[in-house]
C-alpha cells in the first residue's frame, strides 16, 4: 500500500503505457466481435507475429545488429516508421488469412458458433507452433534502436521517451480508427454489418469484403501494438501472445466487447489496475486481481462498462 501512495504517479504512467498497448490489441478483438459476434481466438498470435515482424525488419531487413549503436535523427525516425508500418501490415495480412482459412467457409455454411471458435484455436496453434519451429522455441531479442533516455520527471514520475511515444501515438491511432469507423463509407459498411448482417446484404453491401477489411483493421491495430510492445520491452517469444492476449480480451470485455470506445476505456483501466495491483499485492497476484474485478464488473453490468449496444461507436 505504501508503494502505491509514494509512487502513485510513476505507477499511473507505466500503467497507462501498458494500458495503451492493451487498447490497441483489444481493438483487434472488438472489431471482429462487432461484425461476427465471435471471439477471434487467433488475435493473440496475430500480435505475436507482429512482434516478430518488428524484429525481422530491424535485425534482418535493415541489418541492425543485436547490440549495435542506438540510432539518431532521420535514420531513427525512418527505422521506427518502417517497423511500425511493417508490423501493422504483417499483422493485418495474417489477420485476413485467419479470416479466410478459419472463418469464411464456416460462415457461408452458417454452422453452430463453436466450430469457428475451434478452427480459430487451430489457426492460433498453427501460427505459434510455426514460429516456435522457426525460432527453436527460444526468446528472440529485438535490437535496441531508440535509446531509452529519461526526458523529464513530472510529479515524481520518470517519463521515458519510448513510453511517452506509446502514450502519444496509441491514442492518435485509436481516434483515427474511431473517425474511420464513424465517418467513412467503409466504416459505415462495417457498422451496418455489425447492426444487421442480413439487412446490410440487402442494401448491397459486400459482406465478405467488409468482414475481411474488419479483420485487416483489427490486425493493423494489433500489429501497431506489437511494435509498441517491442519498443518498450525489446524481446519476444513464440508464446508471448498468450498472456497478453488474455489480458487484452479481458479489457475488451470489461469495456463491453464490440464497442470501440469500450476497448479504449477497458484497456486503459486494465493497464492501470494491473500496475496498481502489482504494487499493492505483488506482481504474482495481478492476473487474479484483474479477473476478480472483471467478474465483479460483469455481475453488475452484464454487458461490460459501456454495453454492447452503443450503435454510434459500435463497430
Amino acid at each position, binding site marked *: 500500500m505504501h508503494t502505491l501512495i509514494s509512487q502513485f504517479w510513476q505507477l499511473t504512467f507505466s500503467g497507462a503505457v501498458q494500458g495503451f498497448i492493451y487498447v490497441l490489441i483489444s481493438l483487434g478483438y472488438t472489431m471482429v466481435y462487432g461484425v461476427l459476434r465471435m471471439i477471434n481466438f487467433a488475435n493473440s498470435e496475430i500480435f505475436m507475429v507482429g512482434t516478430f515482424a518488428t524484429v525481422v525488419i530491424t535485425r534482418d531487413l535493415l541489418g541492425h545488429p543485436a547490440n549495435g549503436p542506438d540510432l539518431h535523427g532521420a535514420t531513427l525516425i525512418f527505422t521506427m516508421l518502417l517497423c511500425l508500418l511493417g508490423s501493422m501490415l504483417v499483422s493485418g495480412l495474417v489477420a485476413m488469412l485467419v479470416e479466410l*482459412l*478459419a472463418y469464411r467457409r464456416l460462415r457461408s455454411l452458417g*454452422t453452430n458458433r463453436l466450430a469457428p471458435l*475451434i478452427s480459430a484455436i*487451430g489457426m492460433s496453434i498453427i501460427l505459434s507452433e*510455426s514460429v516456435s519451429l522457426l525460432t527453436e522455441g527460444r526468446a528472440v531479442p529485438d535490437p535496441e534502436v531508440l535509446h531509452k533516455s529519461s526526458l523529464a520527471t513530472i510529479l515524481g514520475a520518470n517519463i521515458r521517451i519510448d513510453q511517452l511515444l506509446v502514450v502519444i501515438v496509441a491514442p492518435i491511432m485509436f481516434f483515427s480508427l474511431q473517425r474511420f469507423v464513424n465517418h467513412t463509407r467503409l466504416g459505415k459498411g462495417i457498422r451496418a454489418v455489425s447492426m444487421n448482417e442480413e439487412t446490410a446484404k440487402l442494401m448491397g453491401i459486400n459482406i465478405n469484403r467488409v468482414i475481411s477489411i474488419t479483420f485487416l483493421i483489427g490486425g493493423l491495430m494489433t500489429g501497431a501494438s506489437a511494435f509498441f510492445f517491442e519498443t518498450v520491452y525489446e524481446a519476444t517469444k513464440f508464446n508471448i501472445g498468450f498472456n497478453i492476449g*488474455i489480458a487484452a480480451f*479481458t479489457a475488451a*470485455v470489461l469495456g463491453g466487447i464490440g464497442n470501440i470506445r469500450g476497448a479504449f476505456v477497458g484497456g486503459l483501466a486494465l493497464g492501470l489496475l494491473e500496475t496498481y495491483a502489482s504494487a499493492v499485492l505483488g506482481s504474482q497476484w495481478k492476473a487474479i486481481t484483474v479477473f476478480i474485478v472483471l467478474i465483479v464488473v*460483469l455481475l453488475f453490468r452484464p454487458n461490460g462498462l459501456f454495453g454492447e449496444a452503443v450503435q454510434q461507436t459500435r463497430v
Partner: protein
Amino acid sequence: MSNLRDQGAEFWAKWDRPRRVTFVIASIAVAASLPFAGNFSITNILNTPISSYQDVLVYPVGMFVLMALGLNIVVGKSGMLDLGYVAFFAIGAYSMAILGTHTHLNMWEIFPIGIALAMFAGVLLGIPTLRLRGDYLAIVTMGFGEIVRITALNTQKIGGPNGIANIPSPPSLFGLKFNISHPNSFFWVVLVLILLTIWMIRRLSIRRPGRAWEAIRQDEDAAELMGVPTLKYKIWSFVLGAGVGGAAGVVYASKAIFISPDAFTFNISVLILSCVVFGGIGNIWGVVLGGVFLAYLPERIRFISNARQLVFGIVLVLVMNFRPDGILPRKKREKALLTKDDLGGKND
C-alpha cells in the same frame, strides 16, 4: 457417411433387448481390453513411440474422454460456453494431493470429497455468473480457471510452483494393484467412471433435466417463459460437469504421484473443449471419439516431436471446416433446431 450417428440410432432401434445387452457387454469388454492391444504384432501400430501405451491410455486418453463427457453436459447439453473447465480438474487433483499427503485417507475415501469440493466450486462460481450469457460467460469461466491455477502457483503451503510430490497410490481393490507399474488398473477405474458418466447423461437426457437443458440451449428466453427454472437447471448442469472434472482430477493426481500448477493451464480447457466440438457437440459417442482421437493423436505422432502441435492445429482447422458439426454430429431432430443463434449468438 451421411450421418453415422443417425444410422447407428436406427440400427439400435431395430434391435431387441438381448441383442442390445450383448452389444453393450461386448463393447465394454473391447474397451476394457484396450491396454493389451499393444501386445500383438497386428495391433502394435497402436503403440505410442515415446511414452508407454498403457500410460497414454490413462492420461491423456481416458482422462480426456472423461472430462470431455463432463464438459459436454455444460457445453453440449445446456449450451453454455465454459473455457475454465480445467479448474474443476485442478480442484479434484489438489484435494487428492493435499488430503493424501496430510491425512491417512486413501484415494477411495478422498474420491467423494474431491467430487464434492469440485461441485461446491461449481455452485460457488455458477450462482453469480450463470446469469451471464455467451461470450461473457466464456471469459468469466476462463478467468476462474486462471484464478485457481495462479492461486495454486502462489500459495507456498501447497507447494507453489513446485507442486506436491509423493501422492500416495490407492490401496488394492478387488485384487487389483494400483501403482506406477500397474497403469492398467487406473485405466479400468477411469473406464468405470466413463461408463458411469455416460449412463448418468443418458438417464438425465430423457428426463426433466435433459429436456430443460435442451430447451435452454435452443432458446433460453422461451424456456424461461414456458416456466423452466433456467438458472436452477443451468447451475445443475454446471455442477454435474464440475463433479466429473473433479473425479478425473482425483484419479489423475493419484496416478501421476506428482502434480504442479503447470498441469492445469488454460490449454487443457481449450483441448477438452476441442474434444467436445471436434467429436460432435452434444453427442456422447462423438465426444468419446473426439476425446480418444485428440488425446491419442499427439502421442502417436510424437516421433515428429517438434511438428506434432502444428499437425494438431492443421487437423483442427481442416476437420472444423469440412465437418463443422464434428465427426459424429448430434441427432438430426436436435440439429434441425440448431441455428446460428445457438449458444446465444446474434439476436438483433
